[in-house]
């Protein structure tokens, strides 16, 4: 189940802490390294991959997204609004007999009720994705911290350096799991 703290975490942009980057050449190596990193108890570990690796988010214990809830609520509200609106325009604001149909003719209102839910649900999904995936942030728009191979065919494990995650310790760990290249990234 979703916790409120997860939602807040997903809205708040990540803090700019120095990251230790371990570069891997195959998804398998990255996956196993991620498992070991979690076993070691590192906090806030993330990865950079050119394509989504299924199951890696569970390994890294990334809290699951609250997107579906937003979509559901928006979709239901969109439908409810269009149902109310069609009733109000056709039966209250200007009641008009069209083709002998009842003023509130629900079968004829159903298509727009459906479309209203779709429209609001879909647009909300898009907007909420921008928020939760830290997209459209001014800094990120201008600057990308890594080079082309990370959107091409190379994988990276990111371990933030903090009080709990000691820099020396992380470096030896990444060497131990066979990272192809290790570097420190300060954003």
């Amino acid at each position, binding site marked *: 189940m979703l916790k409120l703290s997860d939602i807040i975490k997903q809205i708040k942009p990540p803090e700019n802490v120095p990251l230790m980057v371990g570069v891997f050449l*195959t998804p398998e190596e990255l996956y196993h390294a991620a498992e070991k990193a979690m076993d070691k108890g590192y906090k806030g570990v993330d990865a950079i991959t050119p394509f989504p690796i299924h199951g890696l988010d569970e390994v890294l214990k990334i809290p699951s997204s609250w997107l579906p809830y937003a979509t559901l609520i928006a979709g239901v509200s969109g439908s409810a609004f269009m149902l109310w609106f069609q009733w109000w325009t056709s039966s209250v604001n200007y009641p008009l007999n069209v083709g002998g149909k009842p003023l509130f003719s629900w079968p004829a209102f159903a298509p727009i009720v459906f479309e209203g839910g779709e429209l609001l649900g879909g647009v909300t999904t898009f907007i909420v994705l921008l928020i939760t995936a830290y997209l459209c942030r001014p800094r990120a728009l201008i600057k990308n911290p*890594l080079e082309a191979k990370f959107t091409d065919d190379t994988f990276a494990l990111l371990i933030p350096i903090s009080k709990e995650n000691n820099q020396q310790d992380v470096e030896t760990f990444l060497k131990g799991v066979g990272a192809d290249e290790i570097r420190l990234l300060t954003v």
Partner: protein
Amino acid sequence: MSTTNVYQTEAPLIQETVTMNKVTETILAPTERLPSNGWWAMFLTANGLLLIGVLSVAIQMWRGVGVWGLNHPIGWAFDITNFVFWIGIGHAGTLISAILFLLRQKWRTSINRSAEAMTIFAVMTALVFPLLHTGRPWLAAFWLLPYPSERLLWVNFRSPLLWDVFAVTTYFTISLCFWFTGLIPDIAAMRDRAKGKIRKKILGFLSLGWSGTMTQWMHFEKAYLLFAGLATPLVLSVHTIVSFDFATSIMPGWHTTIFPPYFVAGAIFGGFAMVMVLLVPMRKLFGLEEVITIKHLEYMNKIMLATGMMVTYAYASEFFMAWYSENQYERFIFSNRLTGHYWWSVWLMILCNAVIPQLFWFKKFRTSIPVMYFVAIAINVGMWFERFNIIVTSLSQDFLPANWDFYSPTKYDFGITIGSFGLFFTLFLLFVRVLPTLSLAEVKSILVKPAGEKHRKG
């Protein structure tokens, strides 16, 4: 038991030699070099067609819709035929991106991007026609803006034509969001490879700052799944509502309950044919044969065969029910379709939609590019005439014989039809130049041996 040796090992969709790096190079290459002569030739031809359309529309705007061949009983003809045709074309894209995604069909990854782009352009093309059909669309501003009750009377929410407005605009918006969401990681890949400063800046903005972290991917995948879930009923609803434009009336040949699923099946059928028409030259021109293989095309042909059978079923059930119901108007319109004034267009439709696709029963034809190209074009012709038949034959001879008249298109009708193809191809050709025609991330995720040899140690 010695059955172990019969277990199938699946042949990969894409050959093992294709690495992740090769995927990136192959797909992004066309966007990073100057266009070839072949592209210019196609682009200029499409522009020429578009010009014919623009001229026809300009003259129509100047002189009014009277330049079309519409007459008293036939108030809808080429305009609405083209509208329904293009809306239908759009359905294949969403089907491939949403329904096949939910059904976990991996082969979709090579064709979904271009099919989705095609959807958006087809819907844009379609939207031109209702606007043109109103004659002087700018006058609508008086009663539609700022909200549609400017003359104190609300729009009629019980009217299928209004449902259409909601359905098509929703479909366009959601398809655009879906398509753009899928593009974000790929634009980021283009940005990272970009050489020029301005190019890098533009792509940087379009990629919305994507960096490919697992957190982002997790949200991205969730959103993609939600979009697929939303788009699946949406795509069915759009052509359903288009079919309501006809089926809610009492016009013989229009009012029949099978119209909604029949229209949807027909839309997917015609849409796949159009994807084929676009894909075959595209993969040749841009050297994408390794990622869009014959196997992908064969799967598409199978879907065309299946949906073609569904359309044939709908034709049969309409004719059967007209005969069975003992309703004289229904019977007249259906026998009139086969033998009346428009017999040639009805038989052309049956030939193109029900007979020619049967070639795909044979593997030899399913995997032959010339044959599948021919069938795809035939299906497009057939589906255009299907809409023409439904609209024009029913309108021309309805309940009152005194009302009957026939329709003959003018050069302006042909002009806007040709122009719509010009608009569609122009937009598509621009798309293949500037954006990745395949989804990089999705193709990479289905590769057999995703890691590139070039980086491998030792």
